[in-house]
């Protein structure tokens, strides 16, 4: 399974770099789809099969479609896409700083926290499938699960209100 992990990691990071560096929002959205699919593969390697499927359905199927829909609706031309960027050395310093902050974090924790190998082939039967996740959601996490429905309702109302032409009701 090791080579699959490295394949997902390399493809995911390459596509994420593309998301950050793409000029055109459409190509950034397509690169984001590739990253999300690779993250779904990582979930499936971690025995979270239901979550991997949900990742593909919700992210690649709904969120990215929403992004592409808005990009198409805005219909940006060449000069609206063009960004007034900071100068090249400033950009280099910013990206170096934000990447090296994560590297410093790893250096700080190196040797202090020792993680054992992920135990393979000892997972309980049905770990990560629909039944197990659903059982957790409807027993232990019932109240947070119901609260998310309120969150989604508020999101729907907010999106409708924001998209209205005038705020007069």
């Amino acid at each position, binding site marked *: 399974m090791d080579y699959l992990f490295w394949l997902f990691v390399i493809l995911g990071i390459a596509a994420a770099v593309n998301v950050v560096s793409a000029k055109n929002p459409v190509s950034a*959205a397509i690169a984001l789809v590739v990253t999300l699919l690779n993250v779904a593969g990582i979930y499936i390697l971690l025995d979270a099969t239901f979550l991997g499927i949900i*990742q593909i359905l*919700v992210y690649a199927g709904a969120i990215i479609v929403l992004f592409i829909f808005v990009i198409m609706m805005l219909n940006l031309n060449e000069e609206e896409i063009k960004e007034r960027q900071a100068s090249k050395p400033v950009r280099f310093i910013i*990206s170096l700083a934000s990447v090296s902050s994560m590297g410093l974090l790893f250096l700080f924790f190196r040797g202090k926290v020792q*993680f054992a190998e*992920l135990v393979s082939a000892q997972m309980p039967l049905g770990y990560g499938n629909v039944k197990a996740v659903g059982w957790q959601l409807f027993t*232990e996490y019932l109240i947070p699960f119901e609260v998310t429905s309120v969150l989604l309702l508020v999101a729907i109302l907010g999106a409708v209100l924001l998209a209205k032409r005038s705020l007069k009701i």
Partner: protein
Amino acid sequence: MISLNQYLIFAGILFSLGLTGIVLRRNLLILLMCVELMLNAVNIVAVAFSRYHQNMDGQVMAFFIIILAAAEASIGLGIITALFRNKISVQTNEYQELRDDT
């Protein structure tokens, strides 16, 4: 053998790439996509620790984060369309009305 560390490092790289995009880019749509990248990195950490501790709590957490990301994307894109209607631009340096120039 792949241990937990590799998963955490992958998540860290994804998170820092998203952070770089947030700081560097001026396009509102790409900023939202970078937020999605960062949320995904957090999700990988939750799922990896859930696998490590052999329980399902991290997966439920990741499930909630996916719901949150969907709500956030819809609201963010609604705000972008509302902004675009006022001023035909998706660049953040066009929206500086609240900035104090003194």
